[in-house]
């Protein structure tokens, strides 16, 4: 039976960020991931090239036309062949089931960073009240992670603090003209508690070893051909260079058991792995499932926080006759923040529509299909799509470990949350009007719970919840086990959590590396 010093369960953003300090410290590490090796996407190098290619359907819908398969209402981002390859079958394989929520579960090296939107945002001091750590504890790790993965953007005054002003940044990608128009008129909107600024994205604009700078080819949703968008799976080859790190794909950890002053990991297929320490980074759902199983805590509901989210579309009439530009990118182009009283706030991201699939948009329009498709195409040049997020306190989602070992996720969207989101949309629309952006009537839609894919806070650091952990993601009942992913965030402000999760994982792993393994 193999025995290692540290077993890292999960090779997504959290696991990979934890792996670096531990690998450098020389421990014998096994980096485990449930998914098979994911083949890289091979295809055209730009949206323009794709649009001319007679075989483009293969790339956009999949060679087996699986992109046509989903008759249910799914975000177009999740209906591309790449997204379906990462998510289809993942919940089954990981033993996660859901009812009544739009759950997204991914599997494979890189986890959901294989298909994420790249939003890079840090917490502010105000977001971390009640946390057992402060922003200054986290700051050096934010900087280390940002330097490692590459973040581009402008440290915007309007969003200073919100967007991590102290991060090392590549120069920003130029936003698409409709968003640029809004940004140029940002001064008009400063009143009313609404602030808008350039977005920070985990996309490089300068070449790095193994990754090329973004050229705005527009293929973001179908798989970045240049590896400009950060994908934790891309760091695996570099980690494998460490002689003390063993990379174990296609290794699903089914259970954890204490053994001999350390842990025994039960792998699907019967293998057993021994480790003195376990770093759990399988993503909130998988990690919580393993911990609950280790406690034997079946049948209890555990609070899960998610960010209620809604979407809306805005048109910039000044640019109505703009024809759209295949030189674009589908990631967030601007971020906004709206104060809604008593320290509470909502945030959002603006996207251009140049690289969005039109059929999906056309389906949501009232018009007959040919007219809707042409209208969607016509509006591409002047459309801005917006997502808005609320604090996790507004959510009503939970998880529960069932008797058969699977994790059930459930929840609903409280009336208060939808009402808030609607009100916020109204205020955003009002703020954008003087800036030259008009709300497109009928385009507002609140998403089903869990559609935000920000799952967190099941085992909060320093909390008094049943399965709380300490400032290092550990608990006295399960010594030597460190949970480092979204599960341990004590609260879920309305921000993208990935960078924070990575910085926190880096912090815990660095502390573990320094402390050493002598117990």
């Amino acid at each position, binding site marked *: 039976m193999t025995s290692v010093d540290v077993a890292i369960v999960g090779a997504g953003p959290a696991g990979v960020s934890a792996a670096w300090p531990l690998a450098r410290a020389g421990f014998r590490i096994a980096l485990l991931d449930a998914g098979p090796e994911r083949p890289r996407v091979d295809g055209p190098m730009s949206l323009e090239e794709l649009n001319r290619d007679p075989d483009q*359907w293969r790339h956009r819908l999949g060679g087996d036309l699986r992109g046509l398969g989903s008759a249910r209402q799914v975000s177009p981002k999740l209906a591309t062949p790449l997204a379906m390859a990462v998510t289809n*079958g993942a919940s089954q394989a990981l033993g996660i089931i859901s009812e009544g929520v739009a759950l997204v579960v991914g599997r494979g090296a890189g986890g959901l960073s294989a298909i994420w939107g790249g939003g890079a945002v840090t917490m502010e001091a105000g977001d971390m009240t009640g946390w057992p750590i402060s922003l200054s504890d986290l700051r050096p790790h934010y900087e280390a992670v940002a330097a490692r993965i590459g973040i581009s953007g402008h440290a915007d005054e309007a969003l200073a603090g919100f967007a991590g002003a102290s991060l090392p940044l590549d120069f920003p990608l130029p936003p698409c003209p409709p968003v640029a128009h809004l940004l140029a008129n940002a001064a008009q909107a400063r009143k009313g508690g609404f602030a808008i600024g350039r977005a920070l994205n985990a996309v490089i604009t300068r070449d790095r070893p193994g990754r090329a700078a973004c050229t705005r080819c527009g293929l973001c949703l179908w798989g970045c051909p240049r590896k400009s968008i950060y994908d934790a799976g891309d760091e695996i080859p570099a980690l494998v260079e460490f002689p003390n790190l063993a990379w174990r794909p296609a290794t699903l950890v089914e259970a954890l058991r204490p053994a001999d002053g350390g842990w025994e990991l039960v792998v699907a297929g019967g293998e057993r792995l021994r480790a003195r320490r376990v770093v759990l980074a399988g993503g909130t759902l998988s990690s919580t499932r393993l911990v609950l199983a280790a406690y034997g805590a079946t049948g209890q509901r555990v609070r899960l926080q998610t960010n209620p989210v809604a979407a809306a579309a805005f048109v910039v009439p000044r640019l109505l006759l703009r024809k759209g530009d295949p030189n674009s990118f589908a990631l967030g182009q601007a971020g906004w923040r709206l104060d809604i009283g008593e320290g509470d706030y909502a945030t959002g991201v603006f996207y251009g529509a140049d690289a969005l699939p039109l*059929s999906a948009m056309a*389906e949501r329009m009232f018009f*007959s299909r*040919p*007219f809707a498709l*042409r*209208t969607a195409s016509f509006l591409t040049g002047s459309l801005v799509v917006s997502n808005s997020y609320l604090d996790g306190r507004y959510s009503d989602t939970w998880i529960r470990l069932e008797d*058969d070992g699977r994790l059930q996720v459930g929840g609903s969207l409280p009336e208060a949350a939808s009402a808030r989101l609607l009100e916020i949309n109204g205020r955003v629309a009002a703020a954008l009007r003087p800036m030259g952006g008009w709300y497109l009537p009928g385009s507002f839609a609140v998403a089903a719970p869990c559609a935000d894919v920000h799952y967190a806070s099941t085992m909060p650091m320093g909390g008094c919840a049943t399965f709380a952990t300490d400032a290092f993601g550990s608990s006295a009942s399960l010594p030597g086990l460190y949970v480092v992913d979204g599960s341990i965030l004590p609260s879920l402000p309305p921000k993208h959590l990935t960078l924070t999760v990575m910085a926190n994982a880096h912090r815990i792993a660095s502390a573990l590396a320094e402390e050493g393994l002598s117990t």
Partner: protein
Amino acid sequence: MAEHLLVTGASGYIGSRLVRRALAAGHAITVLGRAPDVRGLRSFPWRLGEPVPDAASAGFGGIGPVTAVIHLAHDFDTRSDAQGHSGGLNIEGSVAIARACREAGCRRFVFASSQSAAEDALNVYGRTKYAVEMALAGPGTVSARIGLVYGGEARGQYGLLRRLSLLAPVLPMLDPWRHVQPIHVDEVVDGLLRLASSDHEGWVGLAGPSPVPFGDVLRSLARQLGGRRLRLLPVSSRLALMACNLMASLPILPSVSCEKILGLAGTRPMDTAGHLESLGLSVLPIVDGLRRESAHRRALVAEGRVLGRYILGAPPPAVLLRRYVRSLTVAAEQDALALPWLAGLAPSALRFVDPLTVSPGLGRRVAVMCHLIETSPAGQAMLQRSRGARGLAMLLGSLVLELFAAPFRLLASRW
């Protein structure tokens, strides 16, 4: 009655068709297989020979536990062991599933066997299938001895026969007079689904009731699928075996394993008329079965032409029509819609009944065509023309018609 079916071999030629039809009929499906199921079905990783996960036969999400197993998975390793059939994997693995499911309370087990199943069959496959049948025999278990399957997607053995029949105008063929009993894949699927809720035991023949010469099968495929006349040169079995070894070593020609030749040579007639009647299943002669497929295809092409003209505003290119037919065939949705004859004359009239949401039926077909058009160069060109000042002019021009059509669409969706 809606069943909860546990299916193995669900990604194969018959299996994938079975799963689609079963879902369309309202059954619940659980899949046991190697790769995670890309269709999003409830699936458990499993290989023949491994223990069956307990949770697989349990109920889920409001659906009860498994009511019937349809076992299509087969390990094709043809190295025969001491008993002359392929390693215990098929026998032990199949018995293990049957036992696991019986213990979980499932009463019905349908095993996909073959017409070649016999203790003294010439091919390893036939002997193995027979051995598995004997090992599984018991209450609640039925073995479906499936004949020569054709139709649907060009996969597996059917795909091979298609390629062979279209390979050349003259083909040397072993035993073209050997009688076989062809059955369409949809008829096989229908039969297996009926067996899943019937109480037949022992074995049941799922094959055409009237044997036809194998050569006729190849000739029918050549005529229906390629519009060609195929001539067959009868070949002695020894020469055929040598030729197939040669074909296997040359990469350009499709390789036919000797197993298949032995399988054909050893085919024995099976009296299935009684079985088919007791199942309420009717099996068409292959000529009619292929004609029906062609008829379906032609209907879908016509439908695609109408929908393509409706959305694109111009006749869609042939390659787009083929893709449309393929998308629907792959999704086992091959029944064409009954579009009003007016739509054929003036497809733009469809805007008066364009559904408000993506509902099954017209809504779904329109959505499929829309995706296909968007991902084609012709569609991209159309979408480009819809932008800018010219696009605005065109939109404003059709806006009046659009608003006029709105009340009709509302009415049509109510009704």
